[in-house]
């Protein structure tokens, strides 16, 4: 049967099991939107293309499925770029589809033309320009394959509108044949043996777990490696949830705003077992000073992540789950009794603390959200102080419950990501932990949330500042608060939410916190919780930029 390019796209998406697309219409995607009009495939109309990309990302992170977004050419496509780059940095499987001007106009500076394959080349795993309708199904098949296999990432398909209207026979390929793309899944058995030996012989081992463990669904294997062998576990921001933070072996997050005990432990360890983490600069601090006594085992599916910053002794390239399954069988339990005692001492001496007085402090709010959701919620975040408080004071216990822009650090990510996550997990309680700065970067998505009756709860930790930048200015720039005071001009978030048809709740006192969260949880509408927190509360502990990670400041810590 002959179908138009637009119809072939929709049918191909259905073949790939896509149930939902996040997108926004425009001139060069009219044929696709027309094909969507009577298709069972659901499109969620966001109010900005950037939000469509973030929603697809949040959907992918919450479910493990591929997120799909769709925008028109030119500005529609460029508006996706931040969302694509966010997904790229955090290895999120995504297929982004953009309309393009008619193929014979490409290069002519046509109306709403942008070279989007050129623009997105460094922030996609791969991208395509459809030049011939005969290539369309192969390209779609390859795009989904590339996005979801190996180290996942976004793939963009740029689709000229004239080809959307051309017709051809619809035959969806069964297989892909990419001679230049063969990800390694099985770890090298010799390397796994060496790793097992190193673990068995170690005295001060530590598991350092990143987002890769969650992507490869390896939480169970991480758990048995840690628990069966009494190895303490620290996690990166994106690794949170890979190991339950309420377990006694958990050290929480490490790095710049990590716990003091995680940082001390990794610095003093004699063996780091890295699972799907990439030793990024927010984790290692001063590289020369990082974990000087430690041997490093690095399990990662991306060979380029290995020895990129920290020199690795035992690299194992492959899928974390597959490798850990194999490794766990070979490890003989090391004697870590003394080590765990030292780790526990650090835990006792330097706990995560905040001033628990009568003032409305953000850490308390996070603790209450945790208690009232019983740790079952999906927590999305924006970027800034609130993001770090969420990582520190919400006790993550399950994979895919922490959804945050870690690598790129994209403000405005959390709310649309929460919308995407809620579509992916309709029964889950989904929060967006936000700041008053970040939430204003994609606040128009209130419309998307309300119109789709999404019970997303947005907790705005409102301090009238771009708080993280203000904190740096306070600590390192002599309190010269240069353009970080955004209190003036801040909207009334309660009225704003109400004007979109959502529920707004303002909280100014600590005593009101519980009731407000309870009320929000009972509401099946979108809720904005506007918490007026202590304005100059800081995130501690903190490792100053360029310092070794055991040289922390603040929080009453050494």
């Amino acid at each position, binding site marked *: 049967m002959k179908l138009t390019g637009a119809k072939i796209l929709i049918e191909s998406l259905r073949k790939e099991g896509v149930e939902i697309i996040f997108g926004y219409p425009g001139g060069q995607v009219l044929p696709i939107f027309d094909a969507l009009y009577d298709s069972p495939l659901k499109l969620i109309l966001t109010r900005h293309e950037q939000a469509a990309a973030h929603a697809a990302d949040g959907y992918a992170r919450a479910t493990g499925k591929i997120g799909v977004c769709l925008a028109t050419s030119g500005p529609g496509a460029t508006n996706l770029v931040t969302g694509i780059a966010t997904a790229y940095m955090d290895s999120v499987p995504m297929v982004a589809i953009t309309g393009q001007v008619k193929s014979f106009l490409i290069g002519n500076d046509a109306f709403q033309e942008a070279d989007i394959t050129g623009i997105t*080349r*460094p922030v996609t795993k*791969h991208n395509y*320009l459809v030049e011939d309708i005969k290539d369309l199904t192969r390209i779609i098949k390859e795009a989904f394959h590339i996005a979801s296999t190996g180290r996942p990432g976004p793939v963009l398909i740029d689709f000229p509108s004239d080809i959307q209207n051309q017709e051809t026979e619809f035959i969806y390929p069964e297989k892909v044949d990419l001679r*230049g793309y063969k990800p390694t899944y099985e770890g090298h058995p010799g390397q796994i043996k060496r790793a097992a030996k190193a673990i068995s012989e170690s005295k001060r081992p530590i598991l350092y777990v990143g987002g890769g463990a969650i992507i490869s669904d390896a939480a169970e294997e991480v758990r048995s490696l840690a628990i069966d062998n009494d190895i303490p576990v620290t996690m990166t921001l994106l690794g949170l949830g890979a190991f339950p933070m309420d377990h006694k072996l958990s050290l929480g997050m490490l790095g710049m705003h990590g716990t003091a005990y995680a940082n001390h432990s990794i610095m003093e360890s004699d063996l780091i077992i890295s699972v799907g983490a990439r030793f990024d600069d927010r984790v290692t601090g001063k590289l020369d000073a990082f974990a000087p006594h430690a041997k490093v085992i690095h399990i990662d599916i*991306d060979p*380029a992540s*290995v*020895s990129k910053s920290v020199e690795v002794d035992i690299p194992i*390239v492959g899928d974390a789950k597959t490798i850990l399954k194999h490794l766990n069988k070979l490890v003989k339990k090391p004697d870590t009794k003394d080590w765990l005692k030292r780790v526990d001492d650090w835990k006792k001496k330097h706990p995560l603390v905040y001033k628990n007085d009568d003032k409305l402090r953000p850490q308390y709010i996070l603790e209450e959200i945790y208690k009232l959701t019983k740790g079952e919620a999906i927590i999305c975040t924006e970027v800034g102080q609130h993001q770090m408080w969420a990582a520190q004071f919400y006790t993550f216990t399950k994979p895919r419950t922490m959804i945050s822009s870690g690598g790129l650090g994209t403000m405005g990510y959390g709310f649309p990501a929460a919308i995407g996550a809620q579509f992916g997990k309709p029964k889950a309680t989904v929060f967006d932990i936000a700041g008053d700065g970040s939430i204003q970067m994609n606040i128009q998505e209130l419309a998307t949330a309300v119109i789709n009756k999404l019970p997303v709860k947005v907790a705005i930790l409102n301090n009238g500042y771009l708080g993280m930048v203000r904190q740096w200015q306070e600590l390192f720039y002599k309190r010269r608060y240069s353009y970080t005071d955004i209190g003036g001009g801040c909207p009334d978030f309660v009225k704003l939410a109400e004007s979109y048809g959502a529920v707004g709740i303002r909280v100014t006192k600590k005593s009101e916190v519980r009731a407000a969260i309870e009320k929000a949880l009972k509401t099946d509408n979108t809720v904005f919780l506007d918490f007026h927190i202590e304005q100059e509360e800081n995130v501690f502990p903190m490792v100053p930029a360029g310092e070794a990670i055991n040289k922390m400041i603040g929080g009453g810590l050494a």
Partner: protein
Amino acid sequence: MKHTISVLVENKFGVLARISGLFSARGFNISSLAVGETEDPTVSRMTIGVEGDEKTLEQIKKQLNKLIDVIKVVDFKESEFIDRELILVKVSVTTKNRKEVLEAIESFGAKIENAGSKSISIEATGDRTRVKALLELLRPFGILEVVRTGRIAMSTEDKGLKVEGKPEVNE
């Protein structure tokens, strides 16, 4: 350190941009680049001269391998390959030194393509050492222009560099 790497890529639109973009985005330096079709018309070969320490070179190879359109990356070691470059050089001459210049060119075995009254244009091919030596020989006379094709290189092992796909990572 200077390295020569050979990259087999899909002979497709945009691949050169992917490779050069990768180098610029990651701060790697390309000292020379030559691209051409191979015995298989669907495959192009890029011979890239790069500078950097071992760690940088390792990253370059890994990052190149991550590109979907890259089929194979080979790092040539000194003993295993032959390399050639073609260069055109325009050197200035005066009535006084004309003879001296011609002698130098001749002694080197370079070809004179055009001999004017004020300049002589020369063509020469050679490996990296030879090309460098020629330029050093001519520099005192005053080089007006140099045009280079970029280095190409080929392994001298008995089997060719084939497109059987990326090797398994042995780690």
